[in-house]
């Protein structure tokens, strides 16, 4: 049995007191251990940002990459070893800004990757600039007169690109976030978990008190069907007095990219070993050029 403690690292987080990343970090450790996944069976690929340091504070295989580039690194890792459970953990600047293009492609490929986005709607590590999910009019050091950009809607984009799992969590409701993460990790295919992450230092307007009264669990609404794409579109647009969390959309049975690569039917590529070349192989290869 894998325990929560198995994921404990001697290195302590450097996050601000009260940061939403603590909740996401704990929720990840709960979700992984409750699914009986051992640290060596999991690869956590991250980008750059406060939350992307998660593998430094977690006993897990980590690949801490570049800003915005964790999804293609995770894709390469999955194609090389699809026996490994692969998670991407990164922020909104990383995932929805620099890495948005990669996200669209990971989604349409239905790579079997759990994509956890710590969405605090601000740049924290660079100390307070507006992010792709900051609201219009948001005043920061790079938007002193208020942001003009219309914010990214990650749920709508994921839905448009054909995501097979779209969820959202709020770390103040830790148990709920754990359950969403567990379903996302168990989902076969690309799974987006957008997490409303309060940033206590640079985004005080969108702190716990802002989200707490607004969030509701969409998949627990009477009559809500998580396989209904049209209904998902409606809820994906919902943002204001009520903010949906939970599982917005999930469709099962769509083949993953990895499942459709014929070479990978022989098992994880890394375990396939090098080919034992024969004279017959050599002859065939040479014949192509004669």
């Amino acid at each position, binding site marked *: 049995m894998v325990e929560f403690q198995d994921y404990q690292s001697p*290195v302590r987080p450097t996050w601000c007191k009260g940061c939403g990343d603590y909740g996401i970090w704990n929720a990840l450790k709960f979700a992984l251990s409750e699914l009986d996944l*051992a*640290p*060596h*069976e999991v*690869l956590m*690929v991250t980008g*750059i940002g406060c939350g992307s*340091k998660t*593998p*430094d504070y977690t*006993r*897990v*295989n*980590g*690949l*801490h*990459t*570049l800003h915005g*580039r964790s999804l*293609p*690194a*995770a*894709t*390469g*890792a*999955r*194609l*090389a*070893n699809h*026996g*490994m459970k692969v998670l991407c953990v990164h922020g909104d600047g990383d995932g929805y800004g620099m890495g948005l*293009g*990669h996200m669209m*492609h990971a989604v349409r490929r239905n790579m079997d990757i759990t994509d956890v986005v710590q969405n605090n709607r601000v740049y924290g590590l660079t100390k307070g600039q507006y992010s792709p999910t900051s609201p219009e009019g948001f005043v920061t050091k790079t938007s002193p007169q208020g942001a003009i950009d219309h914010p990214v809607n990650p749920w709508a984009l994921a839905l448009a690109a054909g995501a097979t799992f779209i969820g959202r969590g709020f770390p103040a409701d830790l148990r709920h976030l754990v359950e969403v993460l567990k379903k996302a990790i168990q989902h076969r295919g690309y799974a987006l978990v957008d997490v409303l992450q309060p940033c206590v230092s640079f985004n005080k307007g969108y702190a716990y008190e802002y989200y707490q009264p607004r969030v509701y669990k969409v998949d627990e609404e009477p009559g809500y069907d998580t396989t209904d794409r049209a209904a998902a579109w409606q809820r994906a647009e919902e943002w204001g007095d009520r903010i949906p969390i939970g599982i917005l959309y999930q469709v099962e049975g769509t083949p993953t990219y990895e499942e459709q*690569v*014929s*070479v*990978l039917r*022989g098992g994880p*590529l*890394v375990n*396939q070993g*090098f*080919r034992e*070349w024969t004279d017959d*192989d*050599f002859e065939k*290869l*040479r014949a192509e*050029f*004669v």
Partner: protein
Amino acid sequence: MPSTEMTFKIGGEAGQGVESSGAGFAKSLVRAGWHVFGMQDYYSRIRGGHNFYQIGVSDRPVYSHVESVDLLLALTQEAVDRHCGEIVEGGGVICEECLEVDCASLDQRDVSYFPVPLTDIAQEQGGAEVMRNTAALGAAAGLVRFPFEVMASVIEDNFAKKGAEAVQVNLRVAEAAYRYAQEQFADKFDYRLGRVEGAPPRMIMDGNQALSLGALLGGCKFVAGYPMTPATSILQWMATHAERYGVVVKHTEDEIAAVMMIIGAAHMGVRAMAPTSGGGFSLMNEGLGLAGITETPIVIVEAQRPGPATGLATRTEQADLLFVLHASQGEFPRIVLSPGTIEECFEAGWRAFNLAEKYQCPVIVLSDNFLANSVRSIEMGALDFAGVQIDRGQLLTKKELDELEGEYLRYAYTESGVSPRALPGHPRAVFQGTGNEHTPDGHLTEEIEPRRLQVEKRLKKLEAAHEEIRGPVLYGPKKAEVTLVGWGSTYGPLREAVDVLNAEGASANMLHIRDVWPFPAKALREALDKARRRVMVEGNATGQMAHLLEAHTGVKLDHHVRRYDGRPLSPQYILERLEEVHHG
């Protein structure tokens, strides 16, 4: 006695099948026992423009194209206008009568005009107008009395995919044109390319194919890339061979994704490669540094084309040398190979992976359009398939990890700087790879001591790598009046130029640099010290290799020959400039 050494040039518009038919004819010539060098020259467009394919044929190995033409096959007026002036005395031009040819000027130079109704022949045989190319090559073959059955065998192979009907109609068109040219003109053209009796079977391939073969045999299991001339054919070759040989090939959304995917795959333990050109490599820069600091063994093929930006998309240059040596912020080890021949491309293809894994760093194979896409005939045994070795360096086995005492340190300080590498997946070796500076256990640090030690550890790896870097190849006599120095794809043109000079009674040799980084300064200094007059020849405007040579060896180069008009260096281009140096 009729001449047996000649150059064909087939010129026309994109879409007229100039390249495919030219390549087919080159293969026919090789099957008949001839040595061949084939080169394509085309514009960056799908239709129109002016393209040509040039084939040098000889009974001795041919290492480069030449600038003169013996037989021109002109499919368009532009081909006539551009290339008639290149035809040598005694040569000829095949084209349709509807094209305007200045016969008086040809006569003056003793160049024959062979009007052949290519379109009519194609259509009479039930072919489409586009089969003019097949007709033109059929006519050329007839003119030099090339054995038709050899040409037919290549047509059968090349059109087999399109079905029996396509094979038959192309054969009919080729044969009709063959007979026409033979009957009308063969007596008037003093070139003969029969079958070379006793010639062994040979292969014909280009640099990209040789490199792909080397990578495949060297255990490359993952290729990620975005199509970009002139590297695209590596991605395609790997894709078409992927299923049979167990390779995963991913066409990515961009080159940033390509480099990140090979980093992800290599981190997990498979040999991974990304082929690209300068533009794509520019996008890979940050990833290159990530591979450097995470000590991930990746292989990038950078097939150069002229920049900056889009530059000349379908042409050649050697102007990315200093760029690949310095790309990405910070200081970290990298290894750069610059193969110059088909054989060296093959070797670089597998050797790059061994170097990457032994020194746990990125390896860049620097090629260019001329090398990547020109074909040369080689002996069947020229590429030593069975001699390919796989050395994964200090890669910990499962058993070694099972027996590991204490904590696994991915970035442990060692004598050589190389830390024994574990692959993710073993319970005893759970670790983090990170682009931030880190302690030996892979945790982030900003402290003075580990930073200093990690920088030193990484750079130290180059000391041992340096031992594996090979010095220059010498071609020609050991002592010579003039030494031509080149690197990468200049090998062929330089070798041919050296042969011409020595045949003319001059005394010349050449030094070819095939491994670039870590810079083989000692071997180069020794070789250059022996040279009397040193002429650096390279395909760029600023003398990038000259700069490296002078900076690292202290040896002064006497003269420079450079080319940066997008066209490959040729023996003539080099010899003309040497002449200028001599007289100037």
